[in-house]
């Protein structure tokens, strides 16, 4: 990771000069985690899916991208919209919630996957599929004081 830190260093110093870009007293917070879904077979021969820390990940593995929001303030937070890019190294899993609002054009336009199209090689439009998804988005009308929740989507490493 030395390589990553080197690239990050200039950005970090820039950020320090500019001061924190996020207010410290935010009543609401969001935190992400990333889990690996692994199929394990128990002593009785039944297989079940377990979520584990992703210590080893290779193409074809199934990851769950989680985000936890928490309203720790005294006021309700209206129109809470959570947006996430989908790493180009993964594709949205085929069994992802079909009502999930997604973008297949880098976040310019949004809809459920079945309503979206992308340009095919010959320039015509074809229905978008899970591998085309670039962003996902959730919209919560209201997050009540003290409310916490978890949003997630499954994806498979390309």
């Amino acid at each position: 990771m030395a390589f990553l830190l080197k690239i990050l260093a200039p950005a970090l110093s820039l950020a320090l000069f500019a001061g924190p870009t996020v207010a410290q007293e935010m009543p609401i917070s969001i935190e992400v985690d990333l889990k690996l879904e692994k199929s394990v077979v128990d002593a009785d021969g039944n297989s079940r899916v377990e979520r584990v820390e992703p210590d080893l990940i290779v193409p074809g593995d199934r990851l769950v991208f989680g985000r936890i929001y928490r309203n720790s303030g005294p006021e309700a937070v209206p129109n809470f919209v959570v947006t996430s890019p989908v790493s180009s190294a993964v594709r949205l899993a085929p069994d992802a919630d079909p009502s999930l609002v997604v973008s297949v054009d880098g976040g310019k336009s949004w809809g459920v996957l079945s309503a979206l199209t992308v340009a095919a090689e010959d320039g015509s439009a074809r229905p978008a599929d899970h591998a085309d998804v670039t962003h996902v988005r959730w919209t919560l009308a209201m997050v009540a004081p003290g409310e916490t929740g978890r949003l997630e989507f499954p994806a498979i490493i390309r």
Partner: protein
Amino acid sequence: MKRELISLERAVAASLLLALPVSASAAGVDAGTLIENTATATYDAGEGPTTINSNTVTLKVDELLDVTVSSLDSGPIGATPGSVVLTFEITNTGNGPEAYTLTANPAVGGNDFDTAIDGIAVDSNGNGVYDPGIDQILTGPETTALLDPDENLTVFVLATVPPTVVDGDQSTVDLRADAVTGTGAPGTTFAGQGVDGSDAVVGAGGASDNATGSLIVGITTVDLTKSATVADPFGGTSTVPGSTITYTITAVVSGSGSVSGLVVSDVIPAGTTYRTGTLALDSSALTDASGDDAGEASASGISVDLGTVAGGSSHAVTFEVSID
């Protein structure tokens, strides 16, 4: 795999990293690729839209080790005692650069005989054919250069067929490639030995593969037999001036291979004269002129070009002379 929590201020820089194109191979995204999880949330509590960023979790894709080996020979190689070359292809089916140790085994069950392995060469000039002195011969332990994901390499197994073989003998040579990082049951992990310090993990194929190439001995021989019948002018078989001698030269080709450029020629014996227009191949007449068919004849001798003749066939050349 390395895992990092990146603070809010660094999220922007991390996004830039992810904007780089992800290169993928048949085995999936390349080892060392970073997968990032981050989120942005907006809301409006009456003072205009407010945006908050989450932390960012970054994972590094670990390295899958795998390989395939295949024979590039379309079938058994025809061989005779001496040198023979078998051609194979090594393909990196993992997702990171990997080198492979090659092992050629000439003692395969069912062999009529075993070859002696002289070496393994790589197709340095990429023409698919072994070029002595040009294609690099690997020194032990025979190890390829690093192959990128999906990259393939043609290699040659150089072997010697012993002089004791007989026609039709067959032999098989096995070539195995093992990932240098390690092999084992799928899922076997080599901590920190993958790309950029990622872990290396054995793929479904065990990070090892083998393929066989075979050869068949084709020893072909040609036997020529010459016979003569005499007819005298009086209906008998005495050799007197004016008698006709019909010569038959039979070429019998034996063995599983074939011979090429087989030419049958003979001289007209002294004291005899070639009877023009009597040259024939397998009872079909040939002209005496050269160039118009397989045969030619003159006062000094005859010649018939049989070209390439497969083992197991025979041909008869006939011509007549008269005794002077």
